[in-house]
């Protein structure tokens, strides 16, 4: 398994763990200022999952770069669609001239969800492209 695949599986696991922890927080504490704290788990995605290749030589070649680029584009595209969908939904549901008062924790939670979405889709796309093949 290549370093990129290891990263993808690890990241997918971290995102799944974060979502599960979020669900547990919701069940026990309810939706409130404490719930976004579970997103600190996303920091685990930064842990290195690479093998000795990082220390001994080549880590990325052209195929891995192609897959990484496609995965990043997929993650950003899904985020962008979700972002536009959310904005349009708020406009239509709340009205164009309504003033919204949003607590900071709700805003930060939205940003955390966006980060989780990008990471999750990026990891999933990476795994699929390694399995199914990625033609340049």
């Amino acid at each position, binding site marked *: 398994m*290549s370093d990129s695949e290891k990263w993808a599986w690890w990241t997918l696991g971290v995102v799944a763990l974060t979502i599960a922890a979020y669900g547990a927080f919701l069940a026990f504490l309810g939706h409130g200022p404490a719930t976004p704290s579970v997103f600190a788990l996303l920091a685990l995605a930064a842990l290195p999952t690479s093998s000795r290749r990082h220390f001994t030589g080549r880590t990325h070649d*052209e195929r891995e770069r192609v897959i990484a680029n496609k995965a990043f584009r997929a993650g950003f595209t899904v985020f962008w669609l979700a972002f536009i969908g959310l904005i349009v939904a708020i406009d239509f549901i709340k009205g164009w001239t309504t003033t919204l008062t949003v607590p900071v924790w709700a805003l930060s939670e939205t940003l955390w969800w966006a980060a989780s979405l990008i990471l999750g889709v990026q990891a999933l796309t990476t795994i699929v492209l390694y399995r199914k093949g*990625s033609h340049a």
Partner: protein
Amino acid sequence: MPSPEPEIKNHIRRLRFEHGEMTQDQLAKQAGVTRHTIMALEAGKYFPSLLLAFRIARVFGAPVEQVFEYHATELNL
């Protein structure tokens, strides 16, 4: 529905064995890529860049068209 044939076929596996049973790792090192990429190439899961195609052909001391074969289809001419 059967998947369509790949447009680019290669003879890397055969050429490796004809060159003293060269391992995927040895070829990868000489071509400057990872072994996973050689595996993906042999499995037809990845079409290499022109640069990599030339590098692999050079390792085998063969012209690139002896290593890679292009199959034109009705959709892809």
